[in-house]
């Protein structure tokens, strides 16, 4: 009985606070990253200094620089984000947004914001969340579980290659991962704007990070708003790791996986059918 009364009293006190506060967004949209609490007021000042040029005063991605930027700046009013730890369709966690601001996106004009303090970045997240009512009505999703990575082997790379064929990754990303599959030219995002599939031969980093875990997360959560779907319902964790190991062999850098694969190809290359329509087997 007592705790219920206490809870009711607390709720009454809160509603008084909310009523007196005028706009309630500031209270409702706090952010929390580790031990740091972010605040919208501080975030707003930072946003108007660093973010407004591209993302715009109302957060809709239509800032004054936007016409010259491709892909377009994120529209925060939709609350749809590519790099998340949460399932497709779910809101990202505050940590996900913090990581995105910190890391930037190698595939876009969004720079790294490491010069800003962790407190600054957390404040910005609190403010960004005021642009969409979805943050008031909903909660972030639960991050997907990522089991420990098994050691890469030639067999796991081969299985991953078969998945690249069977899941039809090549239809957009191309048979060699160069972003030139048959559907690449017609891809559009959720605003009907043209968008390119990732070309694995262009660099060492992916859109949402550089580690094998980041890669696992990208195709198991999907990049919401983009054509990249979630494969969480289609791949078991072991299969997802197989696919990670294969994708690592497509990069232009010396990875563990690339070395294993090169060795295997030295003696078995002729056994492989090329990726593509009707192909991909051994």
């Amino acid at each position: 009985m007592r705790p219920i009364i206490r809870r009711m009293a607390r709720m009454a006190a809160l509603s008084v606070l909310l009523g007196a506060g005028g706009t309630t967004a500031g209270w409702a949209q706090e952010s929390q990253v580790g031990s740091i609490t972010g605040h919208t007021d501080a975030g707003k000042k930072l946003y108007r200094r660093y973010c407004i040029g591209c993302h715009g005063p109302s957060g809709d991605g239509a800032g004054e620089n936007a016409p010259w930027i491709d892909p377009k700046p994120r529209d925060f009013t939709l609350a749809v984000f590519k790099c998340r730890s949460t399932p497709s369709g779910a809101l990202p966690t505050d940590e996900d947004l913090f990581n995105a601001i910190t890391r930037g996106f190698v595939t876009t004009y969004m720079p790294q914001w490491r010069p800003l303090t962790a407190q600054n970045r957390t404040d910005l997240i609190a403010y960004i969340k005021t642009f969409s009512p979805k943050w008031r009505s909903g909660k972030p999703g639960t991050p997907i579980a990522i089991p420990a990575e098994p050691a890469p082997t030639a067999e796991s790379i081969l299985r991953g290659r078969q998945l690249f064929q069977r899941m039809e990754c090549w239809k957009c990303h191309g048979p060699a991962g160069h972003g030139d599959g048959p559907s690449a030219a017609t891809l559009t995002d959720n605003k009907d704007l043209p968008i390119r599939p990732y070309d694995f031969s262009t660099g060492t980093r992916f859109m949402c990070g550089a580690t094998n875990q980041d890669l696992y997360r990208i195709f198991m959560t999907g990049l919401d708003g983009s054509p990249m779907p979630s494969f969480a319902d289609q791949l078991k964790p072991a299969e997802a790791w197989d696919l990670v190991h294969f994708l690592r062999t497509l990069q232009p850098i010396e990875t563990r996986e690339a070395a294993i694969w090169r060795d295997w190809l030295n003696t078995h290359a002729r056994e492989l059918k090329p990726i593509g329509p009707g192909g991909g087997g051994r």
Partner: protein
Amino acid sequence: MMLRIFAGSMLVVLVGAAGRGPFPAGTINGKVTYTGTPPKAHPIDMAKEPNCVTQHPTPVSTQDAVTGPGNSVRYVVVYIAAGDQGAPAATDTVHYDQKGCMYIPHVAAMQVHQPLAIFNDDPHSHNIHPLARINPEWNKSQPKGAPPIRTTWEQPEFIAVKCNVHPWMHGYFAVLATPHFSVTDTTGAFMLAGLPPGKYTVTAWHERFGTQSQEVTIGGAETKTVNFVLTAKPY
């Protein structure tokens, strides 16, 4: 008359908890036609997916403006926009198929919370990308042989659906607050049955020709006919 309406609504209250009861249910039916010039349906080039080409001996056409004899319009969602009296929720599962690189049906109507099952009947992969704005926007891959994707929508919304792999694949989920809805057939006909007596707003929605509403009063076990004439514009 007043007495009959009153008695009717009393019955609704009485049977409401037990499901679709024996109240004197009315029906609203009618046809949807257009005036003006609709855009021409054009054949879809599926060359990118050879298997889908062979599934269609005659090429299929775009479905965003399907018209028929007598200026009838297909795929118009007609539904009760106001006046619902706590009717039982629709609980049967709505099926949405991907076959021959087309969505069947092109427009699927459902109530909020109603089970929706999305099937892939093709021997290759599709991704289902509902471009929701109010509901969560998600995007899931469904390779060949994958089990149906089972989901529900929580908020009323007309949600455009697309497949990114096959850019011609376009459809709609019409998520409605009411269990009373109908999608017009090849003759432009619709029917809303099981309506207890009352005053209703009936709305017709078409993805290109817009929205129209009419007021209809149902007094008992009667059928009222209302027709909609939408204004068609070429692109």
